[in-house]
């Protein structure tokens, strides 16, 4: 039984996880599979690039933030996935074997207009590097199951709540 329902999140709340080291093999393996640009795979080419040396694919940084979010709190929640990401900022390069700290901050929560069994929580996810600088910042909303189905709002009032559909 998950511990964290939509009702348990409030603006300003923060979760931290890590720091976690990002092994060179995993970082370069991801680049080889999903983002095989020289700045992510080839030392010499990366030194000549704007990044000034081998750096993680931005998509790897996002995937790591997702993984750390799951490990930090999503695994113990009524997560129903996410509708999207408002913005992603790749602020600083992340190097092989760097360790990053994950921080999730709740920006706002709101009930779903269409689904009374669900609510949305908007988060800022950050990866903080060893120099205490923010290397990745993204804003995303997660859909979470509610402990108690609420009112769906005037347009959908009267519809039967579908409690328990969240996995």
């Amino acid at each position: 039984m998950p511990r964290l329902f939509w009702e348990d999140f409030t603006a300003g709340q923060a979760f931290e996880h890590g720091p976690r080291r990002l092994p060179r093999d995993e970082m370069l393996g991801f680049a080889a599979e999903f983002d095989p640009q020289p700045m992510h795979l080839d030392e010499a080419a990366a030194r000549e690039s704007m990044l000034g040396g081998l750096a993680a694919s931005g998509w790897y940084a996002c995937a790591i933030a997702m993984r750390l979010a799951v490990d930090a709190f999503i695994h113990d929640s009524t997560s129903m996935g996410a509708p999207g990401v408002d913005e992603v900022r790749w602020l600083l390069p992340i190097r092989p074997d760097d360790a990053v700290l994950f921080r999730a901050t709740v920006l706002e929560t709101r009930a779903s207009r269409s689904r009374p069994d669900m609510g949305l929580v908007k988060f800022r996810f950050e990866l903080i590097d060893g120099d205490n600088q923010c290397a990745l910042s993204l804003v995303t909303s997660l859909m979470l199951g509610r402990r108690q189905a609420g009112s769906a709002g005037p347009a959908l009032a009267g519809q039967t709540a579908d409690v328990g559909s969240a996995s």
Partner: protein
Amino acid sequence: MKFFEDIAVGERIALGSHTFTADAIKAFARRFDPQPFHLDEEAAARSHFGALCASGWHTGAMWMRLMVDYQRTEDAAMRSRGEPVARLGPSPGFRELKWLKPVYVGDTVDYATEVVEKRVSKSRPNWGLISIRNTGANQAGETVISFVSAAFVERRGRTAREAP
């Protein structure tokens, strides 16, 4: 990669498609997004998704792969015609990413990209910054992912080999 000056707003590129297998969906999810509806058929069937579906980050990362493959092919064609190839710099990020429909096992996502804006970089005047709207549609023609990303593109005759 074409030079910044040769890229036109409105230009649309078909990047090709990718079919998401159950094995690949689960392998990505085990590493990066281990939620039950991305890992396990039975748990996914009980979830509101109704069936195993790919992590949205997997769908996004696959766009990147097809974009890189497209650029490589274009670069090779330009070199074979004796044309200079522009460098593509890193991306500062993206915005307005929407996962509009789940990507289920066996779905084939057809990716495309369209140039929506271009401007000279204020901080790096030897480079231009382009904004592109990227989309993926499944075999039924439904858009499953959409986002707007930015990337630095080299300006013609502005940069030597050194980075700005």
